[in-house]
């Protein structure tokens, strides 16, 4: 089984061909947006961070920004900094170049002499990059080049009953075909960690699963907060999910049944093929951003209540097994898994259909969130701004 993608100079394979206008910090974020308004084929991210952050928080931001530039769906990047920020443009440039040798240009607003002067140059660079990118043709690659993230948001009981098991079946197929499936959302392992630990390939990996949960709980305890406040959310409860362990037991079905071969930090790339875990928050937008920064080319996202979310870098395929949600939010949701609830199709039959959908999207089919123009970005954080 193969897919059609774009080979990058760093040997990775993308399924989209974006030119990314990347702000180092919040102060250059609007300038990046204005550049994309003038160059069709370019995208930007909205960056709330990059300055006034403690060291560990700044490191997370820098890894995410550089990771997004290195994502194989990106042809090349124009990095725009302000000049005085913590995420210094020169440092960011170096970090990006340490991850990829794709085209990169850097502009600094304070050196260029303001917004308009920066935009003028950035537009010229972006026009050239979009033209160069447009000359690339898709080629056929094996699924070992594909990294798929899985996520769930706005869950209800249909997520754990059907949508997440269908994603689990997809995940098993991907792993068997040599691909990589990333399970994430650490806060939604809580109460189900013992099930995941049994799935770990080694005792060390089982221990790492417990460690990332403890780290999360300790972190929240340090600031006097509890995970129980806000999880399950009001929408989860209205849908019929009562406790956190019930929510988690439904969530972890996304991982399927193959051994977990690696556990790694937020926004880092996996180094192994197979089923892996990235330590991300349960907050969907931040977790999808982390997965994109880790180099996944596509995300499969289950929902029960319905969500419109989409990421600028990677297509987010949204699915639900709640028929009424699918009907109500069809313009936002790509895949209907409700036949499983009605026992019309088995989880594995639906999983095989979902694999075909993932391949179609990899080959270029636009997902609903891309067509609507969604651009959601959130970068995970440790503490308040300084």
């Amino acid at each position, binding site marked *: 089984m193969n897919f059609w993608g774009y080979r990058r100079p760093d040997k990775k394979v993308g399924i989209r061909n974006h030119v990314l206008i990347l702000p180092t910090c919040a102060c250059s974020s609007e300038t990046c947006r204005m550049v994309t308004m003038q160059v069709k084929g370019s995208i930007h991210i909205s960056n709330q961070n990059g300055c006034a952050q403690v060291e560990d928080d700044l490191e997370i931001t820098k890894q995410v920004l550089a990771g997004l530039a290195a994502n194989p769906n990106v042809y090349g990047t124009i990095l725009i900094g302000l000049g005085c920020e913590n995420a210094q443009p020169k440092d960011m440039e170096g970090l990006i170049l340490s991850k990829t040798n794709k085209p990169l240009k850097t502009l600094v607003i304070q050196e260029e002499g303001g917004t308009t002067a920066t935009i003028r140059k950035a537009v010229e660079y972006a026009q050239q990059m979009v033209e160069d990118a447009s000359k690339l043709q898709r080629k056929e690659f094996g699924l070992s080049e594909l990294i798929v993230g899985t996520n769930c948001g706005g869950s*209800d*009981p*249909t997520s*754990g*009953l059907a949508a997440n098991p269908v994603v689990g079946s997809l995940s098993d197929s991907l792993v068997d075909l040599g691909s990589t499936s990333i399970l994430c959302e650490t806060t939604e392992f*809580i*109460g*189900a*960690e*013992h*099930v995941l*630990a049994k799935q770990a390939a080694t005792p060390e990996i089982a221990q790492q699963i*417990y460690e990332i*949960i*403890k780290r999360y*709980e300790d972190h929240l*305890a340090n600031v006097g907060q509890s995970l*129980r406040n806000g999880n399950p959310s009001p929408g989860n*409860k209205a*849908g*019929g999910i*009562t*406790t*956190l*362990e*019930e929510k988690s*037991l*439904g969530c972890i079905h996304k991982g399927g049944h193959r051994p977990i071969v690696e556990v790694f930090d937020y926004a880092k790339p996996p180094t192994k093929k197979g089923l892996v875990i990235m330590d991300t928050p349960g907050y969907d937008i931040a977790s999808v951003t982390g997965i994109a920064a880790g180099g996944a080319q596509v995300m499969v996202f289950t929902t*029960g209540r319905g969500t419109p979310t989409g990421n600028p870098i990677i297509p987010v395929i949204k699915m639900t097994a*709640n028929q*009424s949600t699918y009907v109500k939010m069809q313009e936002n949701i790509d895949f209907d898994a409700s036949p499983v*609830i*009605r*026992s019309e199709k088995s989880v594995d039959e639906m999983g095989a259909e979902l694999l075909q959908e993932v391949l179609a999207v990899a080959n270029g089919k636009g997902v609903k969130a891309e067509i609507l123009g969604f651009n959601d970005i959130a970068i995970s954080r440790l503490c308040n701004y300084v």
Partner: protein
Amino acid sequence: MREKINALVINSTDSVAVVIEPLEAGEAATYKVNGKEKSIAVKEPIPIYHKIALLDMEKGQGLYKYGEKIGCALQAIQAGQHVHTHNLVSIRETIKNRKEF
């Protein structure tokens, strides 16, 4: 006559089922366990996708879904009653207190 399946049980050890259509008091919740069809009388309205108790449970007793414990009963629960935040509470403590860690 075969009744329509209107509730799903995930694991044969579960103490709750998920109803896949809204059910009213007096109706039957019909589900399959290990391929065998079973039915219980619904005691109170259950909204779609919410949980119904499959057996009588005492206060403090563990409730199971997915074959795993999802919390314990805040009060005595009768088979056929709605199970949600009013009668089911989370029991997961922080991980430091767990024996596996």
